[in-house]
């Protein structure tokens, strides 16, 4: 099979992995003394954007799409009739360096189907990374996906070679995993996540006393879960994500709207549209947890287990807490300002810096990057509310709702054509006979999700 065909098959097979980051490590090649070409930038660099609006940063491919597992949601599942291919480590190293020299990519994102056993597959991946790092001296970014069930030894070997390591939790609850990915033991997912966290903490501690310690996944670990393939609610998704951030120190959790790639009795029908708006709302909530010091429980709770559709989660929170507003742009502290709709991390920084140097007038807020159209109901400037009057909460909600066209340029690949999200009809094979609420109870999952981590 020629390289073009392999690249087509193994690129297409890898495209459902949402991660695109090349961030988290800053490394210069060091020139001739450094041993090889390549560098990394702390902020990451995007190299292109495909027709679905997602960025390309790394050469994201599978080593092979042969797979022993039969996960229902996956196009590479054993029982799916799809063309199969495999790269040799030499081919992949040649492609990576060839693309890198032409500035198409920041590095390699390597994942794989399961060949024979998880550890055998990991060995093949380690061999590929060794060839790149040691034989070719490649110093660019490498992100590698751990195969669930892999031993600590093979995770260790990958962590020493890669910048970022990730283990996909795949689904937000143990029950869903059991139904849809019966070959993947839950422990086979959580064990490597714990191992990577512990090794990173060890390395960090050792660096305090020793000058040179072998690095271990310096750009940290991330994960991905599919939403919309199981009846799990946003509550479970976000609590799990929060636990992964707090207890397991993950750098990123990616959410992937399920696209029906195969027909399966336990999955939404092939005609179901991917829940892109739900995915978009989850990313918004995720950013609120990571950069705006929101707690998952402030965004969703058992009474309201899903994020709202009409407004973003921050607006929704603010409208439920109108008694805490308006706040004064001259005095409010950072945490308070961050909770105002229409104000983000950059505009907060600008406000804090600017107000030390001089007074801020209402007309200055837009210059700081504040979206006054949203902030006006929640912010005072010079002692006066920015809006002419304060309408009732429902009217504010209608004003702030995402309207076709207005928020279309969101970076999260949402298409507002998808509004409102059609609820998939849950197939009867789900325990309890479908329906999002019921299946949750029957799926026998603690609300905390796979890792019991709230």
């Amino acid at each position: 099979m020629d390289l073009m065909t392999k690249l087509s098959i193994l690129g297409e097979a890898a495209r459902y992995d949402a991660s695109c980051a090349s961030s988290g490590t800053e490394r210069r090649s060091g020139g001739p003394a450094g041993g090889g070409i390549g560098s990394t930038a702390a902020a990451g660099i995007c190299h292109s954007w495909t027709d679905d609006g997602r960025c390309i940063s790394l050469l994201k491919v599978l080593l092979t799409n042969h797979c022993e597992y039969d996960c229902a949601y996956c196009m590479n599942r054993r029982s799916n009739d799809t063309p199969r291919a495999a790269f040799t480590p030499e081919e992949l190293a040649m492609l990576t360096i060839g693309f890198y020299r032409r500035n198409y990519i920041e590095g390699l994102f390597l994942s794989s189907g399961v060949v024979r056993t998880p550890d055998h597959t990991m060995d093949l991946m380690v061999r590929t990374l060794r060839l790149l790092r040691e034989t070719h001296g490649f110093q660019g970014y490498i992100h590698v996906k751990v195969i669930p069930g892999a031993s600590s030894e093979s995770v260790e070997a990958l962590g020493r070679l890669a910048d970022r390591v990730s283990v996909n939790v795949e689904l937000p609850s143990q029950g869903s995993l059991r139904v849809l990915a019966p070959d993947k033991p839950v422990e086979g997912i959580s064990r490597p996540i714990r191992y990577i966290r512990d090794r990173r903490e060890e390395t960090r501690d050792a660096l305090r006393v020793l000058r040179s310690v072998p690095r271990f996944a310096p750009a940290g670990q991330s994960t991905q879960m599919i939403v919309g393939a199981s009846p799990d609610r946003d509550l479970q998704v976000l609590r799990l994500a929060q636990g992964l951030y707090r207890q397991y120190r993950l750098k990123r959790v990616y959410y992937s709207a399920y696209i029906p790639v195969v027909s399966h009795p336990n999955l939404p029908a092939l005609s179901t549209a991917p829940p892109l708006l739900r995915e978009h709302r989850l990313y918004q909530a995720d950013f609120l947890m990571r950069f705006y010091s929101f707690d998952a429980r402030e965004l969703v709770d058992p009474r309201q287990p899903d994020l709202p559709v009409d407004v973003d989660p921050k607006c929704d929170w603010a409208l439920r807490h109108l008694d805490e507003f308006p706040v004064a742009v001259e005095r409010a502290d950072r945490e308070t300002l961050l909770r105002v709709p229409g104000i983000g991390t950059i505009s907060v920084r600008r406000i804090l810096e600017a107000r030390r140097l001089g007074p801020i007038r209402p007309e200055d807020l837009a210059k700081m990057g504040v979206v006054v159209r949203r902030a006006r109901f929640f912010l005072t400037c010079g002692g006066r509310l920015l809006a002419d009057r304060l309408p009732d909460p429902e009217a504010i909600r209608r004003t702030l709702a995402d309207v076709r066209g207005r928020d279309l340029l969101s970076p999260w690949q949402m298409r507002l054509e998808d509004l409102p999200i059609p609820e998939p009809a849950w197939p009867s094979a789900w325990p309890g006979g479908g329906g999002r609420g019921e299946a949750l109870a029957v799926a026998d999952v603690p609300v905390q999700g796979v890792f019991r981590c709230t």
Partner: protein
Amino acid sequence: MYLMHDGSFEGLMTAIAVALREGDRVEGLLRADDPPTLLPVEPVRTRPDILDRMGDYLARRAGPETPEVLYHAYLSLWPDLDTPMLRYVRLGLSMGRDPGPLRQNPDVLRVKQAQRKLLGEMHLFLGILRFRQAGPSLFVADCEPDGRILPLLGDHFADRLWDQPFVIRDLRHGEAVLYRPGADWRLVALPDEKRAPLESADPMEALWRRYFEVLAIPERRNPLVQRTHLPKKRWRHLVERPGAGPDPNQQ
């Protein structure tokens, strides 16, 4: 009085230095290629050693970031920015710090916006610049950026691809970065006869184009978001073909 400089960064900094010495008598700055004016104009002669001296002075008396802000704003090529830059410097000196955060001030806002635009464009091109193999050991990349980003790109690529001789051509502003292993990269003017488009039969290009196509998920097709990040005017020098994939809605 207005001071007129030759349009180079050295010229601009000389004019700012003279304006600081002359005080309020200088109302603004002009460039030699600006349209003729009836305003009282006095030309300044560019001093080649001005950058080090003004850089030190501004870093000490305004803020350590001030010289860089001015350089980036200058490279943005935004029109009518020289006088706001002069006022930016005066403000910084009077405050004893870099005035960048004082966005309430219209001059500060414009200078900072120009800087941000330039740095944003620079960052974009760190990713979308495409090298084509033009010979056994030469790689050439072409671009047409809005601002003059080449002076800021040299270090990145000369470090990352240090063993690979390359040329980066800015066809819009007629300048180029030349790099050869073992030597520092240089910024040179691009002569007209060196602007010819490159014929490339690089086998990697077909592989990259194909990869780019298969990576898009048809069910998620979203040309608007694609163009937000990668505007059409940037497509010309790419190897891949954005927007060429099948549209499931049209079938």
